[in-house]
């Protein structure tokens, strides 16, 4: 099967890709993942499954490799010169790192939101949301208009911006810009949404809105969120992975990680004794 054609079809039809065994196949199967930046090994032998249609939080102190791990899930680390990985990652059963698979194709199935909001400054709100679809060659105006509204509603931004969709994306407030970036990522209907500390630059109210958003999105898309904020991890996630020094230390139900962790390092971190 040609995956790109399939993707296009899915986008045009506007339905979620049919995953008959969705409850069985995990969103990601990570096996023996090792990753280097030049000589520095950032990840050591990480293996675990990330379940579909759940929120998985990645926690750990700065420099523990959690952002690097997130980037390996959509092959974004490859844009950094000198990076190198070993091991395998499967997305709903498809190996992401096959030689024949283009990184751009992977990133169309795996959306991402960054630490700082990064709308394209020369584009309007509408253009920002639709840029991913346009990259896919979608030109049907009616469809674009419909998807624009859907995506902005999904990211809880529609009511705030519907009357001035032609204004520049960067004219919005910080929290709105971040939700615009979420809408941009959702517009191509990714199967997974990666969030790299999406609230670290936001005030508490904007943070709360994003967290509410995560709760509504979890039914539609699998979410992996890297966060520094342990309250945030315990509030919004089903499962939590604790990384330390480039290794996966513990992975379990979020409640277990925060109340009854197996590993003493995890316990020390979640109880605030280091990090």
């Amino acid at each position, binding site marked *: 099967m040609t995956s790109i054609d399939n993707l296009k079809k899915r986008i045009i039809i506007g339905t979620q890709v049919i995953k008959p065994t969705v409850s069985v196949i995990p969103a990601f199967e990570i096996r023996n993942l090792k990753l280097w930046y030049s000589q520095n090994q950032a990840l050591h032998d990480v293996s675990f499954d990330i379940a579909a249609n759940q929120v998985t939080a990645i926690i750990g102190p700065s420099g523990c490799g959690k952002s690097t791990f997130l980037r390996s899930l*959509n092959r*974004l680390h490859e*844009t950094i*010169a*000198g990076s190198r990985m070993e091991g395998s990652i499967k997305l709903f059963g498809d190996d992401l790192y096959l030689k024949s698979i283009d990184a*751009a*194709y*992977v*990133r*169309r199935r795996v*959306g*991402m939101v*960054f630490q*700082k*909001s*990064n*709308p*394209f*400054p*020369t*584009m309007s709100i509408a253009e920002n949301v639709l*840029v*991913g679809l346009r*990259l*896919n060659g979608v030109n049907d105006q009616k469809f674009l208009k419909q998807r624009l509204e859907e995506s902005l509603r999904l990211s809880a931004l529609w009511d705030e911006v519907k009357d001035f969709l032609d*204004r*520049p994306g*960067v*004219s919005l407030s910080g929290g709105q810009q971040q939700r615009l*970036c979420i809408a*941009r*990522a959702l517009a*191509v209907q990714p199967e997974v949404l990666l969030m790299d500390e999406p609230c670290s630059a936001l005030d508490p109210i904007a943070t709360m809105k994003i967290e509410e958003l995560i709760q509504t999105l979890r039914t539609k898309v699998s979410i992996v969120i890297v966060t520094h904020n342990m309250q945030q991890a315990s509030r919004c996630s089903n499962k939590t992975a604790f990384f330390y020094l480039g290794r996966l230390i513990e992975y379990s139900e979020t409640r277990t990680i925060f109340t009854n962790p197996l590993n003493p390092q995890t316990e020390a971190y979640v109880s605030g004794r280091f990090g």
Partner: protein
Amino acid sequence: MHEIAPQYSAALNYRKGRKWPDISFKYLAMVGALMIVLLIVLVGYELYRSSSLSVHQFGFSFVKNLAWDPAADIYGALPFIYGTLVSSLLALLIAIPLGVAAALFLTEVAPLSIRQPIITIIELLASVPSVIYGLWGIFVLIPWMRDSFYPFLKSTFGFLPLFKGPIYGVSMLSGGIVIAIMILPIVTSFSREVLRAVPDLQREAAYALGATHWEVIRIAVLSYAKRGLFGAGVLGLGRALGETMAVTMVIGNSPVISASLFAPGYTLASVIANEFAEATTDLYMSSLFELGLVLLVITLIVNAIAQLMLRQLTNGASAKN
């Protein structure tokens, strides 16, 4: 009132005595800034004063007059204005695409290991004295143009008025090409600075949407940087307008206005450099000064237009991150 403890009041007095470096620094910096303003005003005033004879004699017709005939004491600037603008625009047409492409290669495409060597070479290019470009233009570029490139242009695009007429070698196009080579380093290195200022977060935003390398450059890099790249072009134009030595050697120095790029031309800077030593009459000298004044005014107008265009380009799209 607060009472100041004795030990603090001593410190306070001590600090009062230490204020003079602040004050003297402030005035020194102010004098430095004012000097620059004064310099520009003085240059403008001197050009105006020295050209007043010619200004009174010819009035506005100086810039409309086609004839430049020192023997008859008739002076007109139009061919030089034309030559300056056309050769500079030709240079920009060649240098901006090349410079931006080179800068894109250096910031987005080239492996890290070869970036610095190429940057060093480009900087070397900028340090070559312009008379050497002139020599190269006369003895290498022009013979090749005359024998190969121009005949090819003429046979292929000869139906356009731009590529009609006799071929001498020295020409407006040769002038434009030499200027283009000379402004290429500055256009490239300025473009590179602009592209490097594009936040990686912008590139990652595009990559994360599944954009290919070229699409990333198009939607995240070029559109973010277009304002700055325009600035690089203006900077290049500023250089091109005043470029003198090498242009004088290859443009033909003939005050004619012709639609053909194969025809020779003459620039404001060239005629001043060529003729100031032979300017025997006061009116002749004064007319050369007026050419200088015209060149200054053109440069100012170009910059003003560029500023206006910049403002329109950036209307609404103020970059927050």
